[in-house]
């Protein structure tokens, strides 16, 4: 019997569902999202796919082997500030941790205006006001020794006061709790005794990391979105069970895999930012299929440009994330974003007569000038329309009609101010935006010790493929891939469908070289046990679990840590280092350090320090394969030409009658030489002069640079 692996992604407007059949076929469907009852939209989208498969809904649900869902409920709760009233219990004397933050303004250093102009910045409106914070007497020191016993009567008094104030969730984070978790756990126990069923978030269960501010914010954020998210997930889980789905529901996490719904209910924080991460997951999967190990993923939407890195088949990770001006610990796939999208506004500084693009954006409303909703300032999308990259009558498959005259007028106003022609100005706006994108990619690669020339750029998101040819060329990248034409618009749902189950466990144990082998091995063993028991809870047997270990190491006395991956232990072997293996770690550290920071940057005489030990437990439930289409004996792509129009090419400094191709008609093996435009229902691909586009067996479009 055919069975399915299904991914569902709920966005602001649409809910997407992607199904991969056991034969490797792909199906996708879109259905309107139904806030606040998001589950309805999800079931609708699944229903559409069932219909296409010719199955009734129940039968379809029964045949699903794995259903993975990406949710934005947590993210939306935070953005709309509709989270729970949280009571925070912490170590007495340290109640202000989340208000002091790190003694900074909580600004993103990429926001230059806020950085240089203090009056434009403020700290965030606190998610826990000071009156909802209680300190209790207790203290643990840096060795994990208790120096002050937990004062339980203070705990009970605090819990009662906070309950009387109407708190809906508790966060508990004490100093040094990751070295000695018992005080926190005891407080949680006391809370549950006083208020059974209330949502409690403990820092040691969520982010047992060194650094109280980032650990505490993680805990509070988790409590803030906890009740809303977990209620949503519980209900959804119920409804799916009723519908006939028999396996545990999986939820995508920011770590780049999926977690069981039970874990997501405890730790909804893991679902924040999981949407963009699914784009990286999808890219990683596709990369494996086509044998592409090094990928720069780029997602350009209306307001932002997101960049992720996959190196040797493994995404780049970060241990600190950022939301609503708060920084928090979470092991996540690293996504760097800048405010550069189709809606980025182009303005002239009148005094200096210079052109600036972004970071402010017209967003979706009023949107670019061509939307005709009242914005008169040109955006990157307006420039694209003027240049002829976008057909105003066939934008996103004709879903939105654009007004070319409005784009032209908007760009013309700017052109007059700087004394260039309208086309030159439009090309300039695009170019400035493209260079900013190249810069952010450079930062995410070069600053991590990667050379962009060793990578393929994956371009997705509505506006990405229009500009990818230029920003990739700027970086010296040889190849751009616009993935899977058929499902490009449901890319994140595809990411969910292909996600492995993944749990990341971390343990901090700060120790200096020379390292104690037995101690290191003890920690590795603890992590391994922890990981396998979590997977067991999720119903995965240990032989199907793949563990990979890493340790964050630094020069003693320095701040910066480098994640050093341990060589794989055999499938059945215990994760135990030998003496030689331990010595080799030093070597691995220096190699990684110098790869990131440059030759000669490390200083061999300095002692090393291990800080965080980490295991990533991964389980791929089944081998996935996608169907490949055979090469057609067609020699020319000209049959796919749907027409011609004037397009301005800045490399040639002129407008040219340019062929427009219907992407749906381009099949395996066909080549298109630039200059050309490929239109698909989701995006436009701009093939610059001296570039060539090729279609592969899976339906990917590849851009190559002809030297």
């Amino acid at each position, binding site marked *: 019997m055919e069975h399915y692996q299904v991914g569902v992604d709920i966005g602001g407007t649409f809910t997407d569902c992607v199904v991969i059949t056991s034969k490797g076929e792909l199906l996708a469907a879109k259905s309107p999202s139904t806030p606040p009852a998001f589950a309805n939209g999800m079931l609708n989208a699944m229903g559409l796919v069932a219909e296409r498969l010719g199955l009734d809904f129940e039968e379809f649900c029964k045949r699903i082997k794995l259903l993975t869902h990406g949710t934005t409920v947590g993210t939306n709760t935070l953005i709309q500030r509709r989270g729970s009233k949280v009571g925070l219990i912490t170590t007495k004397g340290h109640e202000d941790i989340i208000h002091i933050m790190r003694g900074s303004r909580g600004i993103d250093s990429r926001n230059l205006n806020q950085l*240089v102009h203090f009056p434009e910045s403020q700290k965030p409106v606190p998610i826990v006001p000071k009156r909802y914070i209680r300190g209790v007497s207790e203290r643990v020191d840096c*060795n994990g020794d208790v120096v002050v016993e937990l004062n339980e009567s203070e705990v009970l008094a605090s819990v009662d006061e906070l309950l009387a104030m109407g708190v809906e969730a508790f966060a508990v984070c004490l100093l040094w709790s990751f070295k000695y978790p018992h005080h926190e756990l005891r407080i949680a126990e006391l809370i549950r005794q006083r208020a059974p069923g209330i949502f409690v978030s403990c820092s040691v269960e969520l982010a047992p990391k*060194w650094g109280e501010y980032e650990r505490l914010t993680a805990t509070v954020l988790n409590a803030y979105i906890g009740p809303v998210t977990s209620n949503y997930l519980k209900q959804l889980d119920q409804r799916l069970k009723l519908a006939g789905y028999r396996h545990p529901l999986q939820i995508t996490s920011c770590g780049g895999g999926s977690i069981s719904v039970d874990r997501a209910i405890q730790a909804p924080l893991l679902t924040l930012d999981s949407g963009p991460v699914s784009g990286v997951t999808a890219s990683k999967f596709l990369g494996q299929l086509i044998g592409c190990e090094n990928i720069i993923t780029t997602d350009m939407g209306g307001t932002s440009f997101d960049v992720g890195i996959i190196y040797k088949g493994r995404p780049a990770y970060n241990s600190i994330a950022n939301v609503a001006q708060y920084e928090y610990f979470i092991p996540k796939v690293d996504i760097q974003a800048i405010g550069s999208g189709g809606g980025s506004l182009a303005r002239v500084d009148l005094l200096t007569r210079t052109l600036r693009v972004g970071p402010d954006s017209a967003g979706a409303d009023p949107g670019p000038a061509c939307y005709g909703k009242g914005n008169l300032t040109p955006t990157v999308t307006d420039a694209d329309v003027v240049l002829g990259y976008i057909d105003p009558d066939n934008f996103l498959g004709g879903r939105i009609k654009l007004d070319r005259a409005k784009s032209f007028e908007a760009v013309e106003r700017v052109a007059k101010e700087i004394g260039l022609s309208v086309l030159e100005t439009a090309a300039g706006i695009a170019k400035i935006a493209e260079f900013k994108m190249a810069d952010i990619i450079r*930062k995410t690669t070069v600053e991590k010790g990667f050379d962009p020339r060793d990578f393929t750029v994956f371009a997705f998101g509505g506006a990405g493929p229009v500009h990818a040819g230029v920003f990739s060329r700027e970086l010296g990248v040889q190849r751009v891939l616009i993935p899977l034409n058929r499902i490009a618009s449901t890319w994140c749902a595809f990411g969910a469908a292909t996600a492995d189950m993944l749990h990341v466990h971390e343990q901090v144990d700060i120790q200096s070289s020379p390292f104690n082998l037995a101690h290191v091995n003890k920690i590795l063993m603890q992590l391994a046990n922890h990981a396998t028991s979590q997977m067991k809870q999720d119903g995965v047997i240990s032989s199907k679990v793949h563990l990979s270990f890493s340790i964050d190491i630094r020069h003693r006395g*320095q701040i910066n840590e480098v994640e050093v991956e341990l060589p794989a232990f055999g499938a059945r072997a215990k994760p135990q280092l030998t003496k030689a293996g331990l010595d080799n770690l030093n070597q691995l550290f220096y190699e990684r350090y110098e790869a*990131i920071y440059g030759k000669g940057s490390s200083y061999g005489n300095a002692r090393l320090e291990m800080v965080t030990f980490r295991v990533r437990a991964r389980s791929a439930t089944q081998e996935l394969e996608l169907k490949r289409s055979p090469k057609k004996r067609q020699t020319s792509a000209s049959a796919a030409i749907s027409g011609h129009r004037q397009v301005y090419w800045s490399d040639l400094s002129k407008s040219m009658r340019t062929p427009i191709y219907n992407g749906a008609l381009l099949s395996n093996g066909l080549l298109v030489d630039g200059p050309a435009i490929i239109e698909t229902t989701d995006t436009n691909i701009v093939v610059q002069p001296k570039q060539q586009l090729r279609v592969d067996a899976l339906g990917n479009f590849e851009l190559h640079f002809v030297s």
Partner: protein
Amino acid sequence: MSKTSETHYGNSFDAIKGGYIPPDKLRISPKLKLHKDISSKLDPITYEVIRHSLWNINEEHGATIQRLSGSPVAMYALDLNPSILTEEGEFVFFGPYMQYMSGVADTQVKWILENRSDNPGIRDGDMFLANDPWVGAAHQQDVMLICPVFHEDQLFCWVTNCLHQYDIGGITPSSFCMSAESAYEEGLLVPPVKIIENGEIRRDIEELYLRSSRKPEAVALDFRAQLAGNNTAKARVEALLKRYGASTVKSVMRKILTDGEQSFLEKMSRLPDGVWRDRSYIECCRPGDRRSHKVMISLEKKGHKLIFRNEGTVDQDGAMNSTYSGWRGSIMVALNQLLCWDQYFAIGGALRHVRFEPTIGSMNCANFPASVSTAPLQAMEISLYPTYNVLGKMIYGDSQMRKDIMCIGGTSQWPATIFRGTDQWGDPFGYVLVDPIGGAIGAFANADGISTGGQSRTPICKLPNIEHTEQTFPLLFLYRKEVVDSGGAGHFRGGLSAESCFIPHGTNSITHDTLSSGNAIPTSTGLMGGYPATVNVYKFHKDSNIKTLMQTSQMPSDISEVGGREEVLALRQQNFLQNPSDVYSVLWTGGGGFGDPFERDPELVRLDVVENMAVSHEAAKEIYGVILNGERLDVRATEIYRKNLKKTRSTHPRTIDLPLRALKGKLLREVTPSLAVRSDPDNKGHASKRWCCMSCATDLGPLSSNYKDACSTLTAPITAANPHVGDYRRYIDDEPLFRQYFCPTCGSLIENEVARVGDDSLRDIELKL
């Protein structure tokens, strides 16, 4: 030309005695060819792309150092800064990190051009190491690495960085030598020397550099970070030259400068000419000193020129000094933030119209060999912070620029806790507590300041987590908390600062030095009727019962709860011991307030009391005139109370008893929220332009007079300035006062002033309309 340096020595402003001030035209050896070509056609698109790249190069330069440097002082305080300068040392970009540092980069580059272009020569592949404050450095710990970038055989531009070092010698570990009587007792002094030649580290010079340090490995690692930073920036500039051509890139640099210059000139054209002054005080210049030392700043605007002077500032003395480059660098911080922020700190163009006229031998323009190693904590802050006030008063006159005003922020006069001993791992340590970097941002002209928002002189900084500090040092923090009433009161309140409190842990005892000022006299004064923030406060409880409290699980929320013997720590007290039962706390200054607190919406005051824990009930009543009934606002009582207080405010004595009358003439200029200039049809000539109250137009005298003389003046003890100000006699002998100037008719608070008995009423504003 080879004798350049000799013609230089012997001037009062040479780099041996008085501190180097570059001449308008640099004397550069003809051996060094400068790249000056510019491209005749530069389109706005290419300009923007290259400008953005240059900013990014500078940022990547800073990021490289951050990633590589290890020392916590550099990393948390982000005590570093990169910059890019033209071939002749004008700023193109100035990084967003420690702002003091790049303020001295241009003088270093110019000095090198003048004194090193002949011998040993400046060539591609060279870099110069320097930390001499008389050439250009805040203090000896701030070590610069300066790198010329060449195009073919011509010097194209410079990339430089500066990074604070853990220890470079001197009598005190950490090189903050708070008791030094001269630079001979402080860290190694390095005038620019070629440490990189042909791309290679000169081992001999490096070893010389590391030799005096107590932490040579840390300094060596940091040096590699600086090297990598310059290498990165240099390579990226070279790539730009290759891609766009040297003349195009140079044109962009020139345009960045002229754009900055134009923006500056345009702003100047909107402002009236005048002179603005501010006065503050440093306490204790050497161990045992009980004097306060006056520091003056004046800003004169004459057409499109700005002139800064420090006339009236005390002579150099003890260990409280900075050099000329420190003074100038400090002023540049405020210039950048208030006038050049919209050009992203590209201050080079503006500097063409700014003059610095220091008084030689004064405490902030000290002659060699004054002690300057603590300059950034005291001398430079006392040079910088009042500059916010004089610039704020100048730009208030323009309604567009008013929003750029920022009051003096927190950690004005850093209360340092310099400690040493044996740590919990058995290793020796010596350090400065970084916590005061948490600072506070002063109020804005239209919004409250930012509580624990960092120090304004470091736009990005990071307070260490307590767990990081406790891992590294043998300390246990009892608390770190934001402190009620620490922010200055005002229509807009200054940000709150915080207090850290700790005991030794895992060691027998810790040896301490203090180094502070601004403990008796507030230095984070408010603006235009805003009140001062808290002073710095050290508290030390000897033989407390903290151990008992810990054993019985009764942890304190405040040091007042731990008992023991309260000891007053002097402001430069050396070598005192803290044992495990001695509790030590440090409160640093908060942000100054803006405008009359009676103008603040009473509901916001209520929220500050019950929700934000920012204002006490007492201060709500005494300073804001707001009456609360428990957590509720008593609107009626507040109205009556404020009205009565305003009446009292109007009845204090006046220096000159002008007849009380409202001016009927035209409003010529808003000077502050409560002070204006109007024409007076009843007077002719000079006397026809007159100061008056903004709200009721009461005459406050001719423009040629000090408006304060006509105000109802209350002279109160200094404790009235902020609830945290205590008895000055613990630290100094001179009595400080808090003077308030009110409208003699309506009782509006026009300005506050901190002064000592005998100091005149400061003429803070002179306008030439």
